[in-house]
């Protein structure tokens, strides 16, 4: 069992609330989503493992058991080409759950006309394998859901 942590502080709202069908229809896996606090802050690793993909606006941490968790910082934020995001780790780095990965500002993303909501996805997990999703207020590094 893997406990997946909230990568950012905010309100856990569930994947269905994400305005992007790739996430709301769980095309790449089940999970949750956080409507982040509108303040500059650090996005942290949701699990311990290796950063196998690191973009400014999204990253995947893969545990030693091969399970990957995707964190996407806002919707359509690939279009920002990294502007407003600062990397605090590098692709290939080993990280522990809760370790900072990217510094960003959800308020700036929203001012740019994009949703700052953050999907957190258990990649290629079966629907029934993700449960215990927390709803409501969370801090960065708090438990978000369980991947059995």
């Amino acid at each position, binding site marked *: 069992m893997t406990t997946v942590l909230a990568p950012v502080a905010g309100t856990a709202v569930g994947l269905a609330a994400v305005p992007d069908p*790739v996430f709301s229809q769980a*095309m*790449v896996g089940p999970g949750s989503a956080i409507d982040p606090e509108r303040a500059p802050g650090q996005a942290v690793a949701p699990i311990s493992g290796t950063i196998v*993909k690191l*973009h400014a606006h999204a990253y995947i941490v893969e545990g030693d058991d091969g399970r*990957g968790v995707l964190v996407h910082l806002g919707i359509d934020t*690939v279009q920002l080409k990294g502007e407003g995001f600062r990397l605090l780790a590098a692709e290939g780095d080993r990280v522990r759950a809760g370790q900072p990965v990217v510094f960003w500002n959800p308020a700036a993303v929203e001012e740019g006309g994009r949703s700052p909501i953050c999907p957190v996805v258990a990649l290629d997990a079966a629907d029934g394998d993700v449960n215990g999703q927390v709803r409501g207020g969370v801090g960065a590094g708090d438990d978000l859901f369980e991947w059995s």
Partner: protein
Amino acid sequence: MAADVRAIIAGLGGVDNVIDIEPCITRLRTEVYDASKVDQAALRAAGVHGVMLAGNVVQVVVGPDADTIASDIEEIIG
């Protein structure tokens, strides 16, 4: 199932129909000349998770190997 790169190109209407292809962590954002040549059923059969078509922009959801798949496609289409 890993997505089949050549089948994805065929599903997008072939090499000559693809204007641009950009990976975004879980998906390929592709721009095509003629959206009517995009075969969504063929793309799904190629092993992708989903397809979204808006105008002449096709988003092909391939999962976390999007970067690798995009560079494989770019090598083929040149």
